[in-house]
Each structure stands twice: as C-alpha cells, then as structure tokens.
C-alpha cells in the first residue's frame, strides 16, 4: 500500500480504512492467483518432466529417464519441421487475409449507409459459430466435390468440380479459418476506426488531401496499435489451430495439413508417446511465448492502475 498509486483526482482513503482492507485485499486476490499458478505451473512442470522420460502409455512399465532422447528424436523427425512450416504458412496467410480485408471492411462499415447496423451484425456472425460447425458447413455443404455448392456452381458453368480437400487441402483450411476470423478483425478494427478524431480528418480534407492520402497518413497510423493487437491475438490462436483440421482433413492427405498442434495430438493421443508429445508441446510453448512477449508489452502500455 503506497500512496504513489493514488490518482490526483482521488485522495487516499483514511489510514484506518486502508489497514482494515490490507489483509482482506490479499485474501480476495489469492484464490484466482493460486488457481492460475496451479494451472500454469503443474502441467508445464509435468510436461518438462515427461519430455525427459521414455514413456509410452501403451507400455507404462517401460518408463525410464531418457535424457535428451525425446528432443533429438522429435527434432530430427522431418514431419516436425514440415508441421512447423505448415503452422507458419497458416498463421501468415490467414493474418494477411484477415487484417488486409478487415482493414478495408472496417473503412467500409465506418461509412453511413442504409441498414448498416444489420449488415454489420450479419458480417460479424461467423466469429460466433463454433469451429466444428463452421468446418463442417464448409466441408459438406460448400466444398464437397459432389454435392457441395461450389462444385455445383463450377459444374453448372462447365468448369468441372474441384475436390478442395484432396487437391488444395491447405488452401481450404486457410479459407475456412479466414472466414471465421475476418469478422474478429473487422469488429476490433471497426471499433478502433470509430475512435478516430473526425476534426483531424476534416481539417486534412479542407487542406485538399485525397481519400487515399487520408487513409495512408491519418487512418492507418491511428489503427496501427489495433492492427498489432489483432495480429498478436490471432497469432496465439492460429499457432495452435486444431479443431478445423480435426474435422475437415485429419491432418491429411499425408501430412499436408498437419500443423504443430495436430502433430502433437497425433503423437500424444494416437501414438501414446507421452515423452515425444511433451517435447513437441514445449516447442509450441516456446513459439507462442515469442509472440506473447510482444502482445503483453502492447497491453501493458495501455494498463494504468
């Protein structure tokens, strides 16, 4: 309890009120903190422990210390590097699509037009659809090579049908995930653009600035932080994309859509290789932390206690 936290607009509470609160305040925060410490530390410690063990759930009695064996085994598995590559392709392409289109759509939906409220509600809806449902809509009703709507349309035009998940598996996943997350980018970026100072825009327009220049020099700089936040939050999710792949391609054909999360899932729950999966999991943790550091910095700047 230091008085330095008191803001000028608000005088510190009387001394006796503060001391009355000191112990309870700690007790009130403690349950949340303890729960999260356990949630973070226990599984992570176990993952580190398992990563140094030879441990297969099918042969639990053959458990022994393995040193760095799991790491050397995992790191020399070509499939791991392929899966990391696929993870990065997924992250980068979906980020580019959602943020690029999201920025343009945010500008569009910032204009006044007839029925804008309803149009906006329709546009952000995909974000609220559970991932297994959206994956199945696309897989069965839109991209299915025989009865899917896309196939029917292209056949109707005499172009023949595309077997999306066989011929363009990764692109199909990218399309589905982009459809789910474009509304997220739109929602956040639209909120950011609406806080833009209209006087400044007006003044620039008076000085003869054209719309592209206005966008480039006023709107984009204003939105840069929101764009960064969207990019980082999406990256955290995209690094461990799972259910869309689980429902549509199952990582295939071959390992064409096996990202890092799916690779670890295959190791853990299909091969029952606890040691190898834990080592892979730690790699995912390290990757995510690299992103998280930047995200936390951006949030911290905005946090005034």
């Amino acid at each position, binding site marked *: 309890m230091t008085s330095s936290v008191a803001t000028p607009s608000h005088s510190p509470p009387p001394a006796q009120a503060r001391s009355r609160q000191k112990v309870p305040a700690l007790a009130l*925060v403690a*349950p949340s903190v303890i729960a999260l410490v356990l949630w973070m530390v226990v599984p992570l410690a176990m993952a580190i422990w398992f990563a140094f063990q030879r441990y297969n759930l099918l042969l639990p009695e053959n458990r022994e210390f393995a040193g760095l064996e799991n790491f050397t085994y995992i790191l020399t598995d070509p499939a791991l590097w392929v899966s990391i590559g696929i993870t990065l392709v997924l992250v980068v392409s979906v980020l580019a699509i959602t943020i690029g289109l999201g920025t343009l759509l945010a500008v569009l939906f910032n204009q006044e037009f007839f029925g804008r409220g309803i149009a906006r509600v329709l546009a952000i809806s995909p974000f609220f659809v*559970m*991932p297994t449902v959206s994956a199945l809509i696309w897989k069965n009703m839109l991209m299915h090579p025989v009865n899917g*709507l896309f196939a029917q349309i292209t056949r109707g035009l005499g172009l023949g049908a595309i077997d999306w998940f066989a011929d363009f598996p990764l692109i199909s996943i990218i399309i589905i995930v982009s459809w789910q997350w474009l509304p997220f980018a739109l*929602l956040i970026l639209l909120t950011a653009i609406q806080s833009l100072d209209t006087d400044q825009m007006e003044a620039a327009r008076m000085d003869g600035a054209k719309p592209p220049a206005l966008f480039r020099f006023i709107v984009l700089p204003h939105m840069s932080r929101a764009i960064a936040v969207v990019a980082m939050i999406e990256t*955290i999710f995209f690094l461990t994309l799972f259910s869309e792949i689980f429902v549509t391609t199952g990582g295939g054909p071959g390992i064409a859509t096996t990202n890092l999360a799916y690779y670890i899932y295959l190791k853990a729950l299909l091969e029952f290789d606890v040691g190898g999966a834990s080592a892979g999991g730690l790699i995912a943790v390290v990757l995510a932390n690299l992103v998280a550091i930047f995200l*936390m910095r951006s949030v911290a700047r905005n946090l005034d206690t």
Partner: protein
Amino acid sequence: MASQTSRQWLITLLGWLVACLLFFPIFWMFITSFKTEVAAVATPPQLFFQPTLENYVDVQARASYFNFAWNSVVISLGATILALLLAIPAAYAMSFFPTKRTKGTLLWMLSTKMLPAVGVLVPIYILGRETGLLDTRIGLIIIYTLINLPIVVWMIYSFFKEVPKEILEADRMDGASTYQEVVHVLLPLALPGIASTALLSIILSWNEAFWSLNLTTFDAAPLTAFIASFSSPQGLFWAKLSAASSMAIAPILIFGWVSQRQLVRGLTFGAVK
C-alpha cells in the same frame, strides 16, 4: 451532387454484398435444415422448396442430442459462474485497493492465456485420468474456468474502475460493511459490465473445441464434440446435421449480436476501446 448520390449507392451496395457473402454459409446451413435429406443434396441446389420441420423433430427425438446440449449448457454456465465467483473478489480488491503488485499480477494473469493448450495436452490428459475427471463435466468446468479466468478478471476489473470511488466511500462512512458495500452498491452499478463479461465467458466456453474434443468421449461431451462426430464421410445426413448445428449456434449468435460492443474490450484485453 450526382456523384455524391452514386457514391452512397455504391457504399450501400458494397456493404450489403460483403455482409451477405460473409453470412451466406450460415444462411445456407439454416436453409438446409428445413429441407428433406433428398432436397439437401439435390442438383441443382434448391433455393425454393417445401420447408419441413422433420429434421428438427428427428434431432429432438434422439435422446443423445439432449445429452450433448445439456452438457454444453451445464459446462458453459458452470464455468462462467465459477469464474465470476473467483474473479469478482479479486477484481474488487485490485481496482479499489491497488498495490505496487496489482499491475504485474494482472499482466501475469493474461500471460497464462498465452500458454498454448497443446503444450500441456499430455499432462492434463494424464492428470484427468489419474483423478477420474476425464470425460466428466466437472473436469471441463474446471478447465474452462481457468482458461477464461484471466479475461473475466480483466473485464470486471476494468468495469469496476469506472465506478466512482466516492460513491463507495460515502457508503463506507455510513458504516456499511465491505460485504454490504459490494453487494448493494458496487454490483448493481457494475451489472451491465458483469453481464457482458458473463456473456463472453459463455460464448467462449460454448465454442471451445480443443479440450472438449480431446478430453471427452461421450458422458461429458458438449455440442462441439457432437457436431465433430459427423465429420466422418457420410453425405446422407446433411439436413439433420444442419438442424442440429443451427440449434447449437443459435443462442450464441444472439448473445454475440447483443454484446458485440462490450466484447471488443474483453477480446483485446482492453487494448482497443
């Protein structure tokens, strides 16, 4: 003046085109849910048809659908209530009695969100097996509570910060206890914020698919897992699947529409307002 009008037309047209394109897959699923199974896979696709409710009747008739739906309801509500019970006292202490460590604690809480689930899949699976919590609703409730707790604490903290301290202090001078102060003054004032926090927590829990797919088989499986079980190649049940899916997403869509404004704050941890 003419160019002004045509520009307005263009914007309206573009805006609605984008909205309809993005919404189309959901619309198409919804339409399909009212078709017969034969009409659902007909060539060419039918936009006009004799609507039927038989898919909804069929899905409802299956007892297992209710099992999954009930699991979704219990797990999302359970996790949300538990998270609120943990978060409200913590947010109260942090927003009205901040210490040097408050900012650090909040940021640390958010950082737990950055731990990728897949990194701890194996330990959690084994812990669940050892404790008998695998494929139980309690197990998922605990996990969803912990996943959402940082966001819930953060949102309620930011809503509490907006309540003028003077009101609480005046009340305290009148001799109100901490409990009375919180329940009779603070919570009613912050109720809209708490409600939108609860909605976000319900939405996230309802749609969560990583843990529900990996930790449940049948007993505690929510709708996400039920829908995923249709992923095996079977083209014959699209209409029924659409009906089940429509029911699964309808409540969450409505929650999302209602609370879209406040959600931005929660989804970005307050970094975008």
